[in-house]
Structure formats: C-alpha cells, structure tokens
C-alpha cells in the first residue's frame, strides 16, 4: 500500500462515472487504507448534507414584474408587426374587397380598420415614452397595468388567430378586436399618465 493518502481530487474522481487514468491505483489504495475510506465516507456525507439543505425562497413575488416586462416586449413586437405588415394587410384587404365585392359597407369597415390600427400604433408610441417596464410601479398600479397587459395579450392572440384564418378575412371581427385593443391601450396609457403625474414626473 502506498504511504501517501489520496488527494481530494483523487477521492472525488472515485465518485465519477467511468474510469479515469489512475482510478484503478487509487481504488487499490482505498481498499487497503482506512484513513482514505473514512475521508471518502465524509465526502459522501457532505454531498448528502448539501442535497438535504432546505430550499431557499424568494423574499418577494417577482412574477408581476417579469410578466409586465414580457408583455411589454411582446406588445412592442406585435406593434412592430402591425406597423410593418398590419397596414399592408389592411391595404391588400381593401384592394381585395374593392376589386371583388365592391360593397360600400365592407369598404367603410376597412377604412375604419385602418384608422383603428393607426390609433393603436399612436398609443403604442405614447406608451413607449413612459417606458413602463423600466419604472417602479406601486402595487395597485402594477396590478391594474398587469390586468390590462394580460387583456391586451389575449386580444393579440385572438388577432393572430384571426389573421391566420385560411378563408376570407373577417373584417368585422378584426375591427372589433383592434377596437378592443385600442380601448385597452388607452386605459393602459391613462394608468401610466396618472402614475407619472402623481409622481410629479
């Protein structure tokens, strides 16, 4: 038996799967050395104690902030998409309708759709100036903002689903959804304007 006891690195390597160079020699030493056997036992126990440490819990709920940040990013993305493709889609929708159906009510709906989408973009732009996700909100304001963000997210999902419909674009439905989105964005801007004026910003 070697007189030198195993190093911590050698003891740790004995716990690893597979055989590394030197493992056989180390194991041979271990089998004959009560000191190293005791050390390995202590190592096993230390790791077991580490695994048994009670879980630490966060001191506060970070979900409202996380969710608000995610919603804001998603809304910005949707806003950008609406800016890039939404108006183009509305324009092609208008073209299809004017060429295909030539019905005055449908054309009026598309005009309204245009205006509502533009209003939505203007509100997004106003909202970005308040940079809501970068500011601290009190609990009540954060809850109101989160509820509105959640409702906007639901409308966005409905909009995505509606725009993906394979059949003719249901312009009345789109208009209803975009109007709902504008109403919610209006309310969200109000929440942040009120908060900013209360804070003297």
């Amino acid at each position, binding site marked *: 038996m070697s007189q030198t006891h195993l190093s911590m690195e050698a003891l740790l390597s004995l716990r690893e799967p597979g055989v590394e160079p030197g493992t056989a020699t180390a194991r041979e030493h271990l089998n004959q050395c009560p000191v190293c056997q005791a*050390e390995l036992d*202590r190592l096993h126990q230390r*790791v077991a104690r580490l695994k048994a440490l009670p879980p*630490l819990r*966060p001191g*506060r709920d970070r979900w409202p902030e996380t*969710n608000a940040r995610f919603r804001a990013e998603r809304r910005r993305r949707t806003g950008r998409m609406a800016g890039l493709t939404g108006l183009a889609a509305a324009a092609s929708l208008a073209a299809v309708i004017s060429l295909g159906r030539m019905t005055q009510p449908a054309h009026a709906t598309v005009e309204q759709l245009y205006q509502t989408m533009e209003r939505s973009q203007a509100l997004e732009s106003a909202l970005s100036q308040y940079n809501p996700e970068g500011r601290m909100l009190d609990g009540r304001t954060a809850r109101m903002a989160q509820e509105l963000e959640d409702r906007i997210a639901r409308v966005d999902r409905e909009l995505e689903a509606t725009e993906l419909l394979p059949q003719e674009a249901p312009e009345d439905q789109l208009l209803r959804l975009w109007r709902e989105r504008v109403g919610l964005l209006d309310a969200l801007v109000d929440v942040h304007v009120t908060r900013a004026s209360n804070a003297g910003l």
Partner: protein
Amino acid sequence: MDSSLLANADTVVARARTGDPEALASLYRAFEVPVYNLARRICRTTEDAEDVLQETFFEVCRSIGRYREEGSLWGWVRTIAASKALMRIRRNKYRDTDELHDEVVGKRTEDSHLRMDLEAALERLSETSRAVVWLHDVEGYTHEEIASMMGKTPSFSKSQLARAHSRLRTWLGEEGAA
C-alpha cells in the same frame, strides 16, 4: 415531464406556447422556488438571485415555443437558470475580483479554526467554487456540462470542486487526512 412540480404539464406548456398569461404564471409558480434556490446558492446576494429568477422566467416566457420536450421541463428551465446565474457571477467578477475574495476568505477562515455549519461554509466559498459545488454535487451536472456553461475546461471544474471540498472539510471541522 415534471408531474411532481407541475400538474397537467403538457397542457400548461401547450397553452404557455400561445402566450396564455395563466399558463405562464403556472410555470412560474411551479418552478419559482427551485430556480430561486439554485440562483441563491450560486449568487452572493438575494438581490442577484432575485434578478436571476426574473431573467430566467423572462427567458422561459420568450422561449417556451422552442422547448422541444426532449428532456424534462425542469431540466430545460434549470439550464436557463444556471446559465443566467453564471452570467451574473461573471458580471460581478468584473466589478470585484472573485479570486481575490476566495483567497482572502480562505486564509482568514483557515487560520481562525472556526467550526461553521454547512450553510455558512457554503456561503464562504467564492461564487465560482460554490457554483461548481452546487451544479455538480446537488444538481447533478457533469464537469463537461459545467465547463461548457462556464466557458472553461473540465479540468477547471474538477480542480474548483476539489479545492472547494478541501475548504469545506476544514471549515466544517471534519477530521481526517487526505
């Protein structure tokens, strides 16, 4: 998937992929404590750990559509959390030198013959050593996986682990020779 942490995990994930706020909140509630625990065991302060918690779930919300269900859901979330925690300690390292902290703490406590409890001893390790100990011994990552996440070699991970265990052994007042 992790039925113990999240009931109806398949349904929740499917809904979360559509951006459903309730499903995303369910994911957060299911994994909030293990993610925070991992972050807090690695990071030096509660503030850093809470930031890692938020960063992790922000990434989970953004990337849930890319989760392919090849491994466990917790495994996927945990890798994001570990990566965010390691990113945090790397950032901290630019502010104050982790190695210096490690050396100073090591000398001070080895000289003082204090016998600490495990929590305190773990806390005394440098962030890098603690990260390796926690990821390897508790979370079950291999040295190769830790090395890949840290941008180091497996030898670095092994030597950090050995050094950390030698220190823990001394600080915990365990006797014996190795």
